[in-house]
């Protein structure tokens, strides 16, 4: 695994996403309220691009007629068959143990730290005064 600089932080606002390529993989990076998460951009079911899905929350129920909605914007739904995946973990809601999207560590690094290397940043020009999203893939 190597670290890839994939975007300036300013390019992916909270609630936003960006599709990037790192280590030959197509990856979608999400910003959940300032935290960054990276998932393989491929649904494990039939292979559609998850980056084309909408964000949703978690609807739960203890009994019919009583519904709770939480974690708004923290799940991505497949644009085809509506499967729900937890953006924080890549796990599906209905079968979190076996059905999951590969996820990659993601975080933020200062430009001043990045210009020192040794990061794979050939496609993103890095400036010391900005912060960047970094994905390990």
């Amino acid at each position, binding site marked *: 695994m190597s670290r890839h600089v*994939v*975007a300036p932080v300013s390019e992916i606002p909270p609630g936003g996403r960006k*599709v*990037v*390529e790192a280590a030959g993989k*197509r990856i979608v990076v999400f910003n959940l309220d300032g935290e960054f998460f990276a998932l393989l*951009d*491929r649904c494990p*079911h*039939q*292979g*559609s*691009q998850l980056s*084309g*899905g*909408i964000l949703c929350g978690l609807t739960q129920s203890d009994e019919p007629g009583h519904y709770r909605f939480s974690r708004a914007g923290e799940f991505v739904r497949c*644009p*085809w*068959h*509506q499967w729900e995946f937890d953006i924080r973990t890549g796990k599906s809601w209905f079968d979190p143990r076996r059905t999951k999207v590969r996820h990659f560590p993601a975080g933020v690094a200062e430009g001043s730290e990045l210009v020192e290397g040794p990061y794979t940043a050939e*496609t*993103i020009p890095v400036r010391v005064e900005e912060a960047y999203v970094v994905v390990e893939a």
Partner: protein
Amino acid sequence: MNLVRPIASYGKPAAATLGLVDVDIHPRVRDLSEFRPFVSDADWHRLTTYGIHARHGFAKGYPFPKAAPLACRRDAWPPGGGPPASDLPFLQEQLLDRYGLDVGVLNPLQPSGQGDVNDGLSVALTSAVNDWQIEHWLRHEPRLRGSIVVPYEDGPAAAAEIRKRAGDPRFCQVFLLSRTCEPLGRQRYWPIYEAAAEVGLPVGIHAFGYSGHAMTSTGWPSFYVEEVQEHATSAQAQVASMVVEGIFDRFPGLNVVMIECGFGWMPSLAWRLDGAWKRLRDEVPHLTRAPSEIMREHVFVSTQPIEEPERPEHLLDAMEWIGWDRILFASDYPHWDFDDPRMAIPSFIPEEKRAAIYGGNANRIYRFR
């Protein structure tokens, strides 16, 4: 700029050695005015002034969003505007070219006039849909084939439309929906089968329809999850009716394709029908063969949305019973429950059987080759 390549490995599935045929594609009008050239001034006035009269009160199409806008894949909206599958170049790019389809069968749904209460309007609209298929799709794309959309609640009018279109080889089947006013074996529908058998076209029966009846036999369900199970139950009622009424003996050569109805129910329905027939045969003396035998001779099924049991052998057993020569690949493009041809037909199905499902069976029943 981080340049992202498209997902790799598009193209025809390797096992599709007999060709790739998709028997369920749903083209859509951008808006109703696309039908204008194909209806008379009087019918256009009636349509735009008084509208469609579905048998379902207050519903003229989608009464609720069905999981995704227009029940479609979120990535199927053409970049140039308009609803999914309303734009030929985008449909070519996203479906025909991407998967290397050899043939795609168009099955137009609402608004199509099928099942409309106003018989005259139903006749006018369904015929317009057929002209529209020719002018907007078939004329421009030889890989596409049309379905003859008929006003099925009016048997003689439906038969006339079948005979009118039958000479055009671009139409490959007669198109019905699975929720009709009465069970499809009833005499009011016989002119449809007579005409279809006469011109040598199979009858495709696609899930859905606005019959006026509740979609389940015990009433209206609370959830969409339940509605999508109803495809299998209406299909069973229709197959049982057609078999028991003796349709396939009355109209030799007639075949039906159950589209988007699933198929796991086929063996169970046949076993139960056979059991009842052995005991009650003298009620229906015209039924001279076991129902299962008739089903395995005249009823075909399409794959999408394919059953996904936990254990592969259960799927294989059901397919084995139905017959490897009677199962046709379907994608249901552009709907949200689309099946990807590369992924939906599992690789545990032996290769030559997958080849039959992908193309061989459809080529035979629709005479594409």
